[in-house]
């Protein structure tokens, strides 16, 4: 039985194409902002490329998914955060900033060190909730659904980046 035609939003070819476009667009913006940054620091550029990757994923999927909404929210808030604070030229500052924002937004409801789910699930499910953005308070069904979509997008994004690396390194 041939699978039914998937809607273009979940069709992997269309997703890959849209991710490629969006990622290249974000990278292009990165390059345009070059003159404002001290771009000799490879860590900073690499970190910005990584942010561009996650931003592309979240932009392409839009607000349809909890994980993409969480990422978009984080990005918007970190922009406000960095605008209000003086920009530090140390690269480590940006790493700590991103990580501390992530920690703050994902664990704001978790004050205990050991978290046991109300259903008694611990261990794997809790770990999963920490890995997928935006699913901390979701029920098990929603969590699995979001995880599947998140994995699909992550894998496609990795494929897009690998193709770009191959392309740029053969020049």
């Amino acid at each position, binding site marked *: 039985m041939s699978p039914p035609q998937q809607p273009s939003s979940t069709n992997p070819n269309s997703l890959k194409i849209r991710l*490629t*476009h969006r990622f*290249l667009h974000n*990278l*292009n913006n*990165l*390059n345009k902002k070059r003159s404002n940054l001290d*771009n000799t620091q*490879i860590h900073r*550029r*690499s*970190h*910005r*490329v*990584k942010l561009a*990757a*996650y931003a592309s994923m979240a932009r392409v999927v839009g607000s349809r998914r909890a994980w993409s909404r969480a990422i978009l929210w984080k990005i918007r808030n970190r922009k406000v955060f960095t605008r209000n604070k003086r920009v530090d030229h140390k690269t480590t500052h940006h790493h700590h900033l991103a990580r501390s924002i992530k920690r703050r937004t994902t664990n704001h409801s978790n004050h205990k060190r050991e978290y046991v789910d109300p259903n008694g699930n611990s*261990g*794997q*499910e809790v*770990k*999963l909730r920490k*890995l*997928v953005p935006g699913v901390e308070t979701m029920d*098990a*069904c929603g969590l*699995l*659904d979001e*995880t*599947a979509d*998140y*994995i*699909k997008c*992550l*894998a496609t*994004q*990795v494929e897009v*980046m*690998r193709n*770009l*690396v191959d*392309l*740029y*390194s053969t*020049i």
Partner: protein
Amino acid sequence: MSTRRSRSRQSASRISDDQINDLVSKLQQLLPEIRTHRSDKVSASKVLQETCNYIRSLHRDIDSLSDRLAELLENADPIQASIIRSLLMQ
């Protein structure tokens, strides 16, 4: 009345168990390693564990690919880069 309530609660949990099993098997098909043993029933906890590992490895892939891309973009000839970009964005 209590039996009806418990019955409905039981049926509700039965439905969501099926749903969860469906979703777990759907997740299982996305994982690279377990895909070969698709016919075997893999336990849900194993699927969750493999999912966590897979997500972590994908995050690591993105990190390392970002490093390489940053390096390549740094050294890429801007004219060739713009040619590539225009080709890809047709």
